[in-house]
Each structure stands twice: as structure tokens, then as C-alpha cells.
């Protein structure tokens, strides 16, 4: 998985609780991304980062925030989880043209 880890790999949480997902890379790549993947929608970009403390919104950013205090770590936070945020979340990194993906986090909001 090109030196990308995600934690946790699985999580079940209740509606209204905060959740933080972590992405860690060992490749020293500049760009990092958070996607969600749902049936019928493919991969949709939530937020991305183009450097430490430099982030921007993707197409489905509502209800999510991110932080990148170090090159290697990119955190995705759901401030108050909702059932519509039940999904599989993928982190990706890029140092050039291709994006390399992590193994994913399956999040269930009950």
C-alpha cells in the first residue's frame, strides 16, 4: 500500500459522537487526500492537503474537517457523526501524477 496506513480499520460509533480517522504515510509526499466510497458513487473527495497546514475542500466536505500538522499525518474528523456518514473512507497520497491509496477504514454510524 505504498507506505500508507489508516487507523482504525473498522469503527462503529453512535450518532452525534465525534470521530477522528488517521492517515499516516512514510513516503514524504506533498499531497494527501480523504475520500469516501459508497455504492453507486465511486470515490468522492472530502478534503485534501497540499502541504503542512494547507488544506482545501473537496466535493463532499460538509460535516467533515481535516488537519495536517506534520507531513506524514492527515486527520479526518467528523465533529458529530450522522448515519449518512456510514461509509468506507480511503486516504491517498501523491507526489506526482498517480495517487496511492491506503487500505481503508470502514465506519458505521448507528
Amino acid at each position, binding site marked *: *500500500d505504498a507506505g500508507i496506513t489508516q487507523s482504525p480499520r473498522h469503527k462503529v460509533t453512535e450518532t452525534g459522537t465525534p470521530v477522528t480517522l488517521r492517515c499516516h504515510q512514510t513516503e514524504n509526499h506533498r499531497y494527501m*487526500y480523504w475520500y469516501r466510497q459508497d455504492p453507486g458513487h*465511486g*470515490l468522492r473527495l472530502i478534503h*485534501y492537503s497540499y502541504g503542512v497546514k494547507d488544506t482545501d475542500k473537496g466535493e463532499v466536505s460538509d460535516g467533515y474537517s481535516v488537519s495536517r500538522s506534520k507531513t506524514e499525518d492527515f486527520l479526518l474528523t467528523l465533529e458529530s457523526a450522522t448515519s449518512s456518514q456510514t461509509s468506507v473512507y480511503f486516504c491517498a497520497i*501523491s507526489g506526482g501524477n498517480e*495517487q496511492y*491509496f491506503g*487500505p*481503508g477504514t470502514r465506519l458505521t454510524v448507528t
Partner: protein
Amino acid sequence: GESVGLHLPTLSVQEGDNSIINCAYSNSASDYFIWYKQESGKGPQFIIDIRSNMDKRQGQRVTVLLNKTVKHLSLQIAATQPGDSAVYFCAEPKFTGNQFYFGTGTSLTVIP
């Protein structure tokens, strides 16, 4: 707006046969495309890419063809094996924040 789509959501082939997965794009200015493979329970894995100055690019058992006239690209897998069973995506970089458009994917099932 730009879009990257796939013609068929599912494809079943016999083991040993060749597979062809298609992808259409709408932005004629797109100059780079990637194919990803995603196995069940895993993240997408880079397979092969192609630039618009090429019509064809070959990898190990895979070939990508690009037809810029009709804005279409295809992924051909030779001698398909059970391990090729997966969802295949095409992706097109936006070149804005190094973002990408992803197709919804074609699910390939290899029948032994």
C-alpha cells in the same frame, strides 16, 4: 462539466479469455489517465497510466488504448485469471490541487 464514466457496471469472463473494460471521458483537454484495480476489502491499486500523446500502452498482461477522437479509453487484460476479479476504475486528473475524477467502476468476475 467533466466526467469519467464506465460503460458496464459488471463483466463476467471465462478464465483464460481476454477482458475489455471501457471508459468514456468528456473533457477533450484531458491529457492523462490512470486505471486502478480494487479488490474486495482493499484500497484501489494503480495498474497503468497513459498520456494523451500515446494511443496505446502495454504493461504486464494489460494494455490501455486511448481513442481521443471519441474520448474513450479501454483496459484490456490478457488471459484473465481468477486473481483479476476486482472492480476497475479509470481516473482523470483535474490538475487542480492534484485532484482526480474517478469513474464508478466496472466489476470484473472471472469464472473458473
